[in-house]
């Protein structure tokens, strides 16, 4: 019985981890449209762009 319980715990833990990873992966990063003001360099978007590939 203990063995059975241990297997269930392992299986459920793995399921939990996998589903969490899937959720993380499915998130996308929305990059706002660049503003066109004289002082708007939109470098905050560069940080988000970096997040896309790192």
């Amino acid at each position, binding site marked *: *019985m203990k063995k*059975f*319980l241990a297997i*269930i*715990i392992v299986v*459920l833990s793995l*399921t*939990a981890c996998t*589903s*969490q990873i899937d*959720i*993380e*992966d499915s*998130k*996308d*990063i929305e*990059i706002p*449209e*660049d*503003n*066109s*003001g*004289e*002082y*708007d*360099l*939109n*470098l*905050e*978007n*560069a*940080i*988000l*762009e*970096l*997040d*896309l*590939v*790192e």
Partner: protein
Amino acid sequence: MKKILSTTITSLLILVFSTSVFAVGSGSGGVPSDDNTPAPKQEPAPTPKQEPAPKQTAPTKSAPISTPKPEKVCNDIENIKERIGCRLEKSEEELKKEPYMPEECRAIADDSGKQNCIDRYLSLKPCWSATQGKDRIACVKAKLGLPQKLQTAKKLCENKEANCIEDYRQKIYHLITFRFYDAEERVEKWYEEGKLNLEVTTDFVAFIATSKIIFNSARSKNERLEVIKEVISRWNQTVEFVKSAKSK
């Protein structure tokens, strides 16, 4: 025993479910870094922590920090600041006589890499005529072969060739360094308009050139992030200075 078993399974299922819900709710702000390497300090001068030297009283174009002879080739100057100052003092016509060598490309050791860099700069040239902001960035994305709507590398490269992620990463890096370049061009425009003097402009352009080189040689996300943050900080300082000079 069956009761214990069913209670255990129920508890575990609740635990699993609650973990998943928490994961959805957390993290709209991007994927956390998997690299905690501290970013190295920028060695080459000027560092982004330097003030943009906003000490001028009346912005003027006639405050030379070096006095190049008319026939002098700026590209031959070893010191980056002097080289940039030399270029800033030359007219467009005079500059056309010099070999085209962006500072970012100059820093690349191998010839083919250097040439690729120059070619990229040349290919992005038409984007300067696009309105700054979204139009210009849209142009850059198109020239670099990036989709207009950017996605994570993992999503974009799903079921694609092995080099897809690396290729996408490099293009994104080029997009980011273009944003630095944009800062440089705007500051040069303020210089031409007399809003900044030669010294401040030279410092800023040299800072951006150095930042691009450091960004390209960075080995971790944190190092790259540090460069971006320093550019943001320096840009904000310069903007504040231009705005305050304007209001005087």
